């Protein structure tokens, strides 16, 4: 397959933050991942592109720990990473924003933010440290410039974009290294999409690398530094997602012979 190989790598770091090598995953007779390799560098937004069923989501699930690889390896900062659960991944600073957001509509913004990771007083049965949580949540929302009515609003009363933003901000707050975003704007309108993308673009400034799974080339062009294309469980190629490469990327995604260079 034609690959305009070895594109610009962010000059700051030679060694990748995350390296996936020859990842393999089978579901019965179906080969979901067939030797996919992938590098993610510090402070970059990497797009993973591919058609439905190409294996993008499976790959992300393996990186976020909700599924285990059958073959291959994942390395974080040069050290092999063995993930048995999403909890493992989170402990290593890898957070995932799922397509369904995993939000609690009945809980307020702050409670959603800390769900499962509430700050509690030491040596108690889990006495909530509400003041600290409120302060923490406010400061992160402010830093990432997310607009919500108040921390006490139940998330179910927020718009789609705000909900998405809450999910992203939650991941960012707890991620020390990587945030994985699976189709972050799938359910959003034009303007809400714009807001979420703006948020994503800001993450590298916070020292966080992003893996963005998407269908939408425009979006990818807007926020990603590099794009990796996967088809039928294989890595097809890599390109800088800009206007000039548009046709090339599309041809990689659908598997048609490339017209443009």
């Amino acid at each position, binding site marked *: 397959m034609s690959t305009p190989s070895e594109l610009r790598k962010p000059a700051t770091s030679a060694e990748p933050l995350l390296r996936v090598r020859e990842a393999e995953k089978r579901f019965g007779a179906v080969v979901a991942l067939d030797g996919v390799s992938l590098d993610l560098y510090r402070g970059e937004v990497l797009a993973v592109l591919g058609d439905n069923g190409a294996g993008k989501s499976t790959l992300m699930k393996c990186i976020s720990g*909700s599924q285990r690889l059958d073959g291959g390896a994942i390395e974080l900062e040069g050290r092999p990473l063995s993930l048995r659960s*999403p*909890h493992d991944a*989170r402990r290593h600073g890898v957070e995932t924003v*799922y397509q*369904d*957001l*995993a*939000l*609690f*509509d*009945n*809980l307020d913004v702050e*409670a959603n933010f800390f*769900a*499962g*990771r*509430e700050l*509690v007083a030491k040596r108690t*049965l*889990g*006495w*909530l440290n509400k003041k600290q949580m409120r302060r923490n949540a*406010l400061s992160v*929302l*402010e830093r990432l*410039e*997310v*607009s*919500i*009515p*108040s921390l006490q609003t139940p998330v*179910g*009363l*927020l*718009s*789609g*974009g*705000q909900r998405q933003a809450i999910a992203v901000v939650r991941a960012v707050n707890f991620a020390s290294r990587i945030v994985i975003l699976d189709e972050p704007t799938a359910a959003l*309108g034009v*303007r*809400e999409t*714009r*807001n979420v993308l*703006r948020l994503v673009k800001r993450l590298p400034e916070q020292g966080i690398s992003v893996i963005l799974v998407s269908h939408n*080339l*425009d979006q990818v*062009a*807007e926020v990603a530094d590099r794009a990796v294309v996967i088809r039928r469980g294989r890595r097809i190629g890599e390109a800088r997602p*800009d*206007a000039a490469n*548009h046709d090339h990327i599309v041809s990689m995604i659908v598997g048609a012979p490339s017209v443009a260079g």
Partner: protein
Amino acid sequence: MSGSPDQLKRSPDTGAAAPVAAPVAPRAQKEQPALRPHRPALPSFTTIGLKLVGLGPFLFLLLLWVVLSIESPYFFTTLNVTNLLQASSIVAVLAVGQFLIILTGAIDLSAGAVVALCTVIGAQLSHTLTHNGLVIVAIMLATGIAVGIVNATIIEPLRLASPFVVTLGTMSIASGAAFVISGGATVTGLPPLIDHIGSNSVAGIPAAALVVAGFAVVVAALTSRLRWGRWIYAIGGNREAAERVGIPARRVAMSVFVIGGFAAGLAGIIQAGLTDSGQGAASFTAELDAISAVVIGGASLQGGRGTLSGTLVGALILGTIHNGLNLLSVDTNWEPIVLGVVLLLALGTDFMRVRLESRLRLREARQLEVESDNAVPESGRSTVAA
């Protein structure tokens, strides 16, 4: 829509809406203003409506009290209020336990039968084992907890059967066991401590009501102050997400059944003390009254929504209706009909809540659009064709 870089472009109305965020840092030119109350907290019909719906049970209880004190000169006498509290206490205790269970999206049909079982076991052992009130109290509570543990361990680890069916089964077993143990008879004669709890007053307030209040205060404190309380709401709201974010959903879901069992034991103590007896038919279908109280109090049977204070108000509404119909000498056959109507009214207000909330959501989305319009679009690589 070209952006003038040195000026926040906002329409006058929203500009005025955020005076707090007014000092504009230079870098803010391309971004939205940071977190702030992004609209003045002006109450609209929707938000006022939502507040009213939330207060619905309280207002309804007040209305009942006003009407009854007008209709009957006896209603607001000390004696009657004491009676009312006394009579409501068993359902109220059960409702507190049921409330936690319903918050997680489950239900416990066995509660009433467990009350009967506790009264029978307590009464029997008062004769055969000891007349020490504390021991009997402990045994009755332990009985309730034991059934709660059985419910929890059948429902949760396997998650094969619904709580409805499982507790239907344990209800039948507990009820049958109560009749078998008592031989179908009423076993009288409990230790004085239990009789005091069930039928005496302290400073004019029924001891049973004090027990209810104490239990409710503890539960309220635990649910609002402990992580565990949030987790109860979380698993009721979205069980799958709860598991994914690392909440020990299974343990939390089991814990509420154990507390529900404890509540049934407590109700058993009150029930036994009230009549100085244990019998298999005691508190028959009391769990349905408790569930009604929770629902009338504004909680959702889907889980994740409701307040403890609402639940207590719900129990008081049930008690007041019972008491009021008595005072007005209405044929007791009418009581279930009235209760049914009230329950359906509660469902109606819940429906209104859903409608109002979706209106609020819509408004939130529109608000966001206005803000996006006012933000300066970033010069992007948006030239790539789709």
